[in-house]
């Protein structure tokens, strides 16, 4: 193992630290208004060989931070995460605290370990080392250095250039032993500035290095695409290394990635058990088409096998056997895929293990042939000369629908030992995802607004609603329906509702309901004013001027509110607002309103035809919202007939 780099870092850091308080003041001026600055963020990756000639990879991170505000002590807590695949080899942390014109170095002496849990991953062997920096105050610095051993050399992670806080100096260094060849993928990192300096010494050790200065902090925002969409980063991979005097391919391209994935699933058994066979036979007893067989199996898995990520060691990468998953009634994405594989194969349908990255991995296999490209396993199977995908972790998707988080993503479909295909998941068009509320209102003899409505959801809207309905009952269901259907004002009272059968996985779900709203109609002598905009779509969806990140939605959609008013007998409509439209590229709306006989019918139909809206479109978007608010500010007038 190469240790000299460690020393260099220490010398470098030493140089920085000797600078003491006068430099601190310079930084404080330079970064005024910030709370934290990363003075140095340094990543060193060392790729060499162990005693048996296998690849050995170590990662060393050095973070030096400066705190610029009173109350810096609130940032005292810090942690280092590690796991079986990323083992913690060493760690050190200390604070550099201003003492007059000098700095005092105060080491962290107590590190505490804890097991990591989360809702999505119940158990994966993750640990973290938690500690507190002592004596933080304005002008203090902290230094954290730790070293991880990356047990699987395939799992080199992305190296980001930039962080939420500004970074004064960002350094990346990758050192390779002779024979180790590297490839790099770049994201948001085009141009010569992102090309590494490459040096090879006499012994054949090569160093790739990058250095960046004065990086602004990067913004995050609600409903924004993943950090990796806009943050510059480099994704390294080992393309080959030398073994016993020969050059061995490692992750040169997707073929190699697939070889590795294949080797991981090569060991599992896709055998069926009596239990599986009985289930499949009974599910498909009356099935006549392949689609029926696939549907029956997929929906059974949705309803009976729960998603629980409970893995250890290589279980994080190797699917569990179908028999075990079926018997336990839970599995992670790979386990669920493995069970569906066996069930479908037994039912006579050809299944394929498949890998895919959710939308927060913005990469294609060809560009990034490393495990960074994906984070999920699904099952592909043939249906009428086509390929369809089944995601076992989605318990409410329609059989022919891939969850929205995978739209537009490439799927690596494992056809055989040495054959794979890359298939793109379609992005569903806006017409596929419809939300339509049709409301019919009247005024009762007491002046109360009374109505009935039908809300229809299709596509991903329907799947989302189905997912909720499958999980709630009783008073929770009632509360849910009230919150879904509330309109007009918070005096909305839901008097009756029914839900279409959602267990049959029909394409759409409808709610039928009746309601009344007290004090909604405004009565002024012989006139009544009525705001027919019972649902004010997007009223509060202005993009803030301060927003500096793109805007992402789950899926494209059409959203429609139709309101029909029966004009009370002795009244006539004396004011009806005008129609209005706004269309600008990927979004827009049509608003129509007219009187037909004794009814006023208004129809607002809005569409979003994008998944990510970039910032240049915000002004147009806000114009759309302003136009919609124009509609929401109009009421109709009903006057007593003379």
């Amino acid at each position: 193992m190469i240790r000299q780099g460690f020393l260099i870092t220490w010398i470098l850091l030493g140089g920085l630290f000797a600078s003491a308080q006068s430099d601190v003041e310079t930084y404080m001026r330079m970064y005024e208004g910030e709370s934290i600055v990363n003075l140095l963020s340094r990543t060193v990756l060392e790729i060499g060989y162990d005693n048996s000639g296998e690849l050995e990879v170590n990662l060393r991170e050095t973070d030096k931070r400066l705190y610029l505000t009173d109350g810096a002590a609130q940032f005292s807590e810090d942690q280092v995460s590690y796991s079986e695949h990323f083992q913690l080899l060493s760690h050190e942390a200390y604070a550099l605290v201003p003492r007059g014109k000098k700095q005092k170095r105060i080491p962290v002496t107590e590190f505490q370990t804890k097991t990591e849990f989360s809702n999505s991953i119940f158990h994966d062997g993750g640990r973290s080392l938690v500690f507190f920096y002592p004596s933080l105050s304005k002008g203090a610095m902290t230094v954290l250095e730790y070293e991880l051993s990356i047990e699987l050399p395939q799992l080199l992670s992305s190296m980001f250039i930039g962080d939420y806080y500004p970074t004064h100096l960002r350094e990346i260094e990758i050192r390779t032993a002779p024979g180790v060849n590297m490839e790099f993928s770049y994201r948001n990192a085009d141009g010569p500035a992102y090309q590494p300096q490459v040096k090879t010494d006499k012994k054949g050790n090569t160093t790739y290095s990058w250095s960046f200065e004065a990086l602004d902090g990067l913004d995050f925002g609600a409903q924004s695409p993943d950090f990796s969409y806009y943050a510059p980063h480099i994704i390294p991979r080992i393309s080959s290394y030398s073994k016993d005097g020969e050059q061995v391919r490692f992750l040169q391209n997707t073929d190699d990635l697939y070889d590795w994935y294949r080797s991981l699933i090569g060991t599992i058994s896709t055998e069926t058990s009596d239990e599986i066979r009985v289930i499949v036979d009974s599910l498909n007893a009356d099935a006549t088409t392949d689609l029926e067989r696939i549907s029956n199996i997929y929906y059974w898995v949705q309803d009976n096998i729960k998603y629980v990520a409970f893995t250890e060691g290589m279980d994080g990468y190797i699917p569990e056997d179908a028999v075990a998953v079926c018997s336990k009634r839970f599995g992670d994405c790979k386990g669920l895929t493995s069970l569906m594989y066996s069930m479908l194969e037994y039912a006579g349908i050809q299944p394929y293990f498949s890998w895919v990255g959710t939308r927060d991995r913005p990469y294609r296999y060809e560009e990034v042939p490393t495990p960074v490209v994906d984070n999920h396993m699904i099952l592909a199977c043939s249906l009428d000369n086509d390929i369809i995908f089944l995601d076992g972790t989605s318990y409410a998707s329609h059989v022919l629908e891939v969850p929205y988080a995978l739209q537009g993503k490439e799927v690596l479909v494992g056809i055989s030992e040495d054959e794979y295909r890359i298939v793109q998941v379609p992005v569903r068009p806006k017409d596929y995802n419809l939300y339509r509320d049709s409301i019919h209102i009247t005024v009762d003899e007491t002046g109360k607004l009374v109505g009935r409505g039908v809300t229809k959801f299709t596509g991903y809207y329907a799947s989302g609603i189905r997912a909720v309905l499958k999980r709630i009952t009783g008073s929770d269901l009632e509360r849910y329906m009230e919150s879904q259907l509330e309109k007009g004002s918070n005096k909305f009272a839901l008097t009756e509702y029914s839900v279409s059968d959602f267990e049959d996985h029909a394409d759409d779900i409808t709610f039928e309901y009746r309601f009344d709203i007290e004090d909604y109609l405004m009565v002024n002598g012989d006139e009544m004013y009525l705001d027919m905009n019972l649902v004010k779509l997007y009223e509060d969806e202005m993009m803030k001027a301060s927003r500096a990140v793109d805007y992402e939605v789950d899926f494209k959609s059409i959203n429609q509110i139709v309101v029909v008013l029966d004009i009370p007998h002795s009244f006539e409509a004396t004011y009806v607002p005008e129609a209005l439209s706004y269309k600008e590229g990927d979004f827009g709306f049509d608003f129509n309103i007219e009187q037909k006989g004794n009814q006023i019918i208004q129809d607002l139909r809005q569409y979003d035809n994008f998944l990510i809206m970039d910032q240049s479109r915000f002004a147009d978007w806000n114009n759309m919202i302003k136009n919609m608010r124009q509609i929401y500010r109009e009421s109709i007038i009903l006057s007593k007939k003379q």
Partner: protein
Amino acid sequence: MSQIQFWSILALTACTLLSASAQSDYLTYTWAEEPSFEIPVEYADESEVIVMDRNGVEFVLEDNTFYQYELSHIVTYVQDDAAVENNNKVFLSTRQEDEVLFQKVRVINRQGEIREFDESDIKEGFDEQSGLNYEYFAVEGLDKGSFVEWLYIIKSNARYNGSMIRLGAFETKLQTSFELIAPEHLLFEFASYNGLPDVKLDTVHNEKNYYRLAVDVIPAMENELMSYPAANLAAIAYKLDENTAANSVNMSSYKPSIRNFYAYVYQMLSKADRKALSRVIKDAGIQDQMSDREKIIQLENYIKGQFAVLPYAQAEFETIEAVVNNKASTDNGYIRLYANAFDLMGIKHELVLTSDRTMYAFDPDFEAVFYLQSAQIYLSDLDQYLSPESTHLRLGYIPWEFTDNYGLFISRFDLGDLSTGVGRIDKIEAPGHESSQLNHGIVVDMREDVLEPTCHFKVEMSGHMSSFIQTGYESLSTSEREMMDFALKDFITAQADDMELKISNAEADVFGRKPLVVEATVTTSDFTTRAGNKVLLKLGNLIGEQTEMYNEKPRTLRIDNDFNRSFYRTITVHVPQDYTITNLDQLNVNIEMPDGTARFFSDYTFEENTLVLSIDEYYDRIQYPKEDFEDFKEVINEAADFNKVVLFLEKQ
């Protein structure tokens, strides 16, 4: 709060508990070989029902050490997917020094097939910060319609001077029981809360006392607005009261806790601690000529502005020297720092230990250590409280969870050259409604443009209404301030994005003395609606949506407010000369609780085409019995109704 460490400070003094060695009954406890559970038809539609819950604790003396064996045996019926997902992971957390003697789980599915989980599937986790160990596993083979049976026994050092067990839950519970077994000469005392019957001495057998309680049905707790469901769950408390063999009585009184906590806070100071104490007083800029109040404010602002509160116990951070050097400590460290600094400055004070009333209110009639959850400081000459660990609060304000609650007040008692702590139980009164205000001064000028008037907002917030913003604003970075400013704009009106905001008194140092003031002016059509040539002014929208209780079901829980508060609003509307308002009558309202503790009152003047409306609303009592709910609801809904007030403007 680091409960475990806190309790170790209060920990028991040794007492002799003579006893013949006996084996715990629970060592031989197990489940039925052939389980037969049923779900009564009336509960069959509920997502999840606990059909049996057996809780036991046995106190045993073994090798001169006093242990407890804690038994939990629970059977849950899972009816639907949500219940399966709630129950397919089992998670047992214990203190590091506890020993899980055994833990087992089995699933009995709808067909009656039994599946016992494999002990090798238990994973172990730990958290050195909180001092907890975890045993957890995923329950295999769980289908809808199954019963999950879970049984475990934990052995630990006896915790006999006060424990609470909650028997009520958010699911219906059937066949719920509690049992306490102790050597015959040890007599326990019990308290039952929220509708449970008393625990009784049931049998004496083999020189052991068996105390028991059993209930057939405990209805599921429902969430209701303005209530703390957890504090309303059926629960029992127990503690050792008497050792007849040693003639000891009143064994679980607060006396040792008082003594220990007093000693921990005041009596373990080193020379270095004293030096650090003087330094902190000097660094805080405290001068002799200042009044006590000024000194307290100065010290508190200094510490809370510069020091951090660590979430978990770290003994090395808790000496006064360490607190001052590290500028970081736990709440224990801060109690020491403040209390001793006050001593050094000659400021009279008491330590107050109390519980979070949203979880369980302090019972003044049942002395038990679990009520001593958190430490606050009472400054008796000022009759005000200070919360050492709450960086977002200042003198006069402590977390409201601790107010309107009883507490144990500990003060110094001098005996010649020696001093010790003495305690009393007293009420921690909640500050009155004037202490937390949210006031609006709004001027709407429609004279230039009746449809797009200019609105000036002045919002004043104080106390618990403003604490987080007012004490945190200064330490935000520029971009974080921008975000906060947007949140404040949103609070004024969600739709006006491009208004200038002026913020004053956003300084931690003035919290509690000056209100946070947010001002903005915006010309907007957000508050007007057009209906032909009529203009509707949505006056109610100017103050935003209010809490409402329009569609409440019959009330089952008492009303609990977080803190007392008031809302004073003045709205001035300048109407163009050629317009008149036709529906002003609705603006006169007066609704109040019969005892005058909550009120909504509004009245107006309309002169020279200017409307001046004032609305006073306040809530000055924390708790009401459920019988008062209808009256209370009327006040709340009156305010919510105001949000819907629309004025009609017509051209004359």
